[in-house]
């Protein structure tokens, strides 16, 4: 019922299929916000301001990519924020407390994240418990493990991590991004390739469009569902590693509520929460819009931080209403 049907839409050129409309609207909004910010604030229309949105949100981007996979199958993953925190905590403990080498730590953290996701996916599929509840338990588990490791913030002084945190990848013209942004973009490209050019990607859309139909078509529903939660767990762990580059500390209270930001980014990017319809490009734009809201509020100066939440709420409302209108006209 939520499958995007390609069809012309009144008011737009025939060439733009309706399934691209939500993504295009998000892109339009992003452009409008950039223009409005540039007109209103001195120094806003600078390439580095846009790049800083990437630098400050690289970890969220990676997490949101994993969330996109899960939401495309019609599921939800509430554990991502906690897994991010757990990853920073494990990294910090092993690096600072036990003197492990950085590559070993990163590999271990990624493996733990993927394993947590795999376990949640297996429980969701084999025992038929709602994703909401299973990932909620996963959220408690990961957050609880953080506090069990330690309740204090642990600084990271490891050479590799600090080097990665301070390196600037120069793009010419005085513009730069952090290595995390490069990692995030690689993840986005890999995920886009998997979603649109591999069998797994087609299975993800098929399961989201209708699990029963996918099963009757002989698609590997079990493998797909477990795979998306594993991907989400892996992406969360990677997001956690990027966050430890950004924060240079491990703390059980890092990334509280990040699952909401990730879900909001996916929704603003035009992906339907019922599954089966949406694009990774939309998620990228969604993360950028969220980041730009924060930038604008910091440029405004007088607005307090809670306006961010109110604006995100309003944006969510506007986008969901838009999606409703589009899908209502389709019927």
């Amino acid at each position, binding site marked *: 019922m939520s499958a995007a049907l390609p069809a012309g839409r009144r008011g737009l050129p025939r060439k733009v299929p309706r399934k691209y409309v939500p993504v295009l609207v998000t892109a339009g909004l992003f452009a409008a916000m950039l223009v409005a910010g540039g007109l209103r604030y001195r120094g806003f229309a600078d390439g580095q301001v846009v790049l800083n949105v990437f630098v400050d949100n690289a970890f969220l981007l990676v997490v949101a990519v994993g969330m996109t996979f899960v939401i495309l199958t019609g599921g*939800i993953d*509430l554990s991502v924020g906690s897994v991010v925190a757990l990853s920073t905590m494990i990294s910090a403990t092993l690096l600072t407390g036990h003197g492990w080498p950085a590559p070993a730590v990163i590999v271990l953290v990624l493996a733990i994240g993927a394993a947590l996701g795999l376990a949640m996916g297996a*429980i969701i599929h*084999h*025992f*038929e*418990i*709602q994703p*909401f*509840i*299973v990932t*909620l*338990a*996963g*959220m*408690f*588990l990961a*957050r*609880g*493990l953080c*506090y*069990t490791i330690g*309740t204090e913030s642990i600084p990271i002084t490891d050479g590799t991590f600090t080097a990665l945190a301070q390196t600037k990848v120069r793009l010419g013209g005085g513009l730069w991004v952090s290595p995390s942004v490069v990692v995030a973009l690689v993840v986005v490209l890999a995920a886009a390739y998997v979603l649109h050019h591999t069998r797994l990607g087609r299975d993800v859309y098929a399961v989201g469009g209708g699990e029963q139909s996918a099963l009757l078509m002989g698609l590997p529903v079990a493998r797909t569902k477990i795979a998306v939660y594993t991907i989400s767990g892996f992406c969360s762990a990677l997001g956690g590693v990027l966050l430890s580059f950004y924060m240079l500390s491990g703390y059980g209270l890092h990334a509280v509520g990040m699952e*909401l930001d990730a*879900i*909001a980014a996916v*929704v603003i990017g035009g992906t339907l*929460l*019922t599954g089966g319809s949406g694009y990774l490009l939309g998620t990228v734009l969604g993360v950028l819009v969220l980041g730009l809201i924060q930038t604008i509020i910091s440029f405004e100066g007088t607005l*307090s*931080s*809670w*306006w*961010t*939440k*109110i604006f*995100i*709420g*309003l944006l*969510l*409302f506007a986008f*969901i*209403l838009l999606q*409703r209108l589009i899908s*209502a006209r389709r019927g």
Partner: protein
Amino acid sequence: MNAVARHRLFWPAVTLAGLLLLNLVFTDHFFSVQMKDGHLYGSLVDIVRFGAPLILVATGMTLVIATGGIDLSVGSVVAISGALACLRISELGDQGSVGGVLAAVGVALALSLALGAWNGFLVAGAGIQPIIATLILMVAGRGLAQLVTDGQIITVNSAPYKLIGGGYWLTLPFGIVVVAAVLALTVFLTRRLALGLLIESVGGNAEASRLAGVRARGLIVTVYAFCALCAGVAGLMISSNVSSADGNNAGLWIELDAILAVVIGGTSLAGGRFSLGGTVLGALIIQTLTTTIYSIGVPPETTLLFKALVVTLVCLVQSPAFGRKAFHRRARPASPRPAPDEKVKVTA
């Protein structure tokens, strides 16, 4: 015995009893309830008292989930309601005036109702998925609560307001009285009148029940408004108990606890059926778990680990698929035997 074991509240009740017994091992006189200065005291009373806001929120959540929906915004409503009431009271000339406190409480509850109606309108009127419709208020509402308190913690010093969350009435903590009243009213409305049946029919199939003449939209708006009202009352209790309102942290994650309580109580998230008794059991399990962790001396940092463990176990035990797969070998030989008996009965 088998019929008892198959009752939907069997496993939640066993879990709660197990937790309580565990407490008895570690704490002497855990079950003793004493009367001091005309007030009831005791660990059991405390569990119900501290669990009161959760029971309230979970009661409203049960009805929402019964319609096939979900309400993520209750935590924000808790914060907004507490913040608004404390703001109004702090602006009073005499914070002890009963009329002023009643007016503040009235305004806070009216706003909660309005927020709930807004959720209901988004779900029933605009046809937005419940999880998303309420996500809007969950995110924006936290900001609104901080807007009301201006990012500060508002403290009040008002005896009448303190009664709601910290006072006693007829030997019982006032919060328990409120919860009992709300529960009794809800049970009466849903189990003695047709309302419960209508809610379940909407949860089973909203379109079919609309065609059958049930006013599904009005019902859904009512249910969301009721849920927000419960959250509003819980918000008053929480802020009154500490005589202050914190827009940032009040009611944080209470929506998740409430949903857990409902699910542990055996109400399916798919909607169409609900069990208020199960929800109360579920909320008590969550509260007892917290108490147990403190009383048996587990470091409080591992609270969440235990919660994850218990939640997973209770959900697994209740999952029919888990029963089929985990007890595969035992179930197989047992199942063919009762079948012929039943057949004989039918033919005879």
